[in-house]
């Protein structure tokens, strides 16, 4: 069983929900990411989504765009992101790591080379924002052959037909983008999310993580309970942005926020 499947199964046995932080690798500096990953696990993270910086992050709002720019200023890349993940795995065998990014850096490396490198780094899942199932056959086959879960997105306007398509192509979990918009946008509407989740559940047995627009512990709890997990991105990255000259403080604030979310979700 994949590390992701095992994690969600274990959570579901104990009636808990997954807390999934997203941070951009190399933001604000390459050496910050590894200790941050370990700290987030200690604060209660069940899965880590590690953002691969890209020059043209079309689906991201300003907060994650700037995170990408800061990381790229330090020459962060897909290769170096994989190296950080491999380093993390040396001392943490439990927590799944999911790479999240855009398809061009993967194209540049070559799908097969990328799949091999991801396997060597013991990556658990790959979420490629601009690679819908229609274009993903080759990449999905290579990943699945290596026991890596391809993670697909669902949106508020996804039809039943598309949900079934994601269910067939994806594994590990499905990521429900809770609002029409870019990352970090306004606030999500929990009633809408609940309605959509019912529709999604009818077409898939995969766990569903919900993200986009989750900023505080209370929303995290509400949203987590509608699905199987909650993804927190821009709210964490804002802490990095606000404390660029003091990464230790950024880490402390992230740990605090995640800790509060963990507590709220479990209560």
């Amino acid at each position: 069983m994949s590390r992701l499947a095992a994690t969600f199964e274990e959570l579901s046995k104990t009636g808990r929900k997954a807390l999934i932080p997203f941070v951009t690798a190399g933001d604000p500096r390459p050496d910050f990411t590894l200790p941050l990953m370990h700290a987030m696990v200690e604060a209660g993270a069940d899965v880590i989504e590690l953002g691969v910086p890209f020059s043209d992050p079309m689906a991201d709002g300003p907060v994650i765009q700037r995170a990408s720019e800061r990381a790229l200023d330090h020459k962060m890349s897909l290769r170096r992101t994989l190296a950080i993940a491999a380093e993390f795995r040396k001392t943490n065998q439990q927590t799944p790591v999911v790479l999240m990014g855009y398809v061009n850096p993967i194209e540049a490396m070559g799908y097969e080379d990328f799949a091999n490198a991801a396997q060597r780094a013991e990556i658990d899942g790959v979420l490629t924002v601009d690679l819908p199932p229609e274009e993903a056959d080759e990449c999905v086959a290579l990943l699945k052959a290596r026991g890596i879960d391809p993670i697909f997105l669902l949106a508020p306007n996804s039809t039943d037909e598309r949900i079934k398509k994601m269910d067939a192509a994806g594994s590990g979990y499905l990521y429900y983008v809770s609002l029409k918009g870019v990352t970090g946008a306004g606030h999500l509407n929990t009633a809408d999310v609940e309605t959509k989740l019912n529709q999604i559940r009818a077409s898939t047995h995969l766990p569903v993580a919900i993200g986009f627009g989750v900023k505080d512990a209370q929303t995290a709890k509400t949203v987590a309970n509608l699905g199987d997990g909650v993804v927190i991105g821009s709210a964490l990255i804002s802490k990095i942005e606000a404390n660029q000259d003091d990464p230790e403080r950024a880490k402390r604030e992230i740990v605090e926020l995640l800790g509060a979310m963990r507590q709220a979700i479990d209560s």
Partner: protein
Amino acid sequence: MTEKYNMPDERGHFGPYGGMFVAETLIPPIQELNAAYQQYLNDPEFIAELDADLKYYVGRPSPLYHAERWSRELGGAQIYLKREDLNHTGAHKINNTIGQALLAKRMGKTRIIAETGAGQHGVATATVAARLGLECVVYMGAVDVARQSLNVYRMKLLGAKVVAVESGSKTLKDALNEALRDWVTNVDNTFYIIGTVAGPHPYPAMVRDFQAIIGREAKQQCQDQTGRLPDALVACVGGGSNAIGLFYPFIDDSSVKMIGVEAAGDGIETGRHSAPLCAGRPGVLHGNRTYLMEDDDGEIVETHSISAGLDYPGVGPEHAWLKDTGRAEYVNITDTEALEGFHALTRMEGIIPALESSHAMAYTMKLAPTMKKDEIIIVCLSGRGDKDMQTMAQREGIEL
């Protein structure tokens, strides 16, 4: 060619290129657009309305003009200019915006967004939005806002909101990113009018089909005026819409050479250029697979060209396919050469071309002398140079 050219396939692929590489939220609106486009493409009422607008509003057909003096001076092939500069708003861009705006109206969309580089597409979009009474937001890189301020003012006069994009390299590619972000956020009421043959399927095919009026007219006019097909077609390539518009109706005429001219900026060897077909490699950006300018890690690199309309790191996927199959040839022209083309046409024929089009003129100056006097080149004069007066004056140290 024995088989008729029939690209793209139904999923928008030109061989390995094109496709639909977008985030999930954009899949439904793109499918909706594709369905509407397929429906109206063959709808007699839609076609009649489009034709009438092109005739009475845009001023089509645009002339095919025999540049006799210039041809004589160059001493080779006869040069014919397809005068897209004479269209309303001064470039080929309006052929496409008229078509897409009519689609938007049919689809009940009330808000139009667009990206623009030189500002020509922004102006052409603001123009049709004004005419149809639609809200219009144009995204433009902050660098381009500064170097094309005249067009920014035109767009504002036309009632559009112009948003200066401050992210990334602050040029056309970043404007496209921002327009995509807007679209994801406002999918329900918003129609995104992309200005070139880029973006996810169906844009590359749809924009081509709207621009193909250039080549259809040119083919007929060339027959009427010379009794034969041209020997070569020349057009500048930014995203590639004026070029594919001219080329497409000739694709099955294998005797007709097709040459796209990319911007070499300071020179290909300097790395400061905008020539993905000549010096890039395949990758995925803005919804399609095509040739890109990128580094080893797949990050898109900054481009350079004196002409804002060619300053783009990608190119329409159909050009990538035409390059790989050898049906079209792609060359490049530096800033300095483009300026020579600009001055040559201005002084020899009394026509001031856009800096984008000047790249095609400069290549024609190289090509024509290598051809026989009874051979024919059709060059796409994609736009007029009025918008570039500031850039030119600045370049030549003149204060206006």
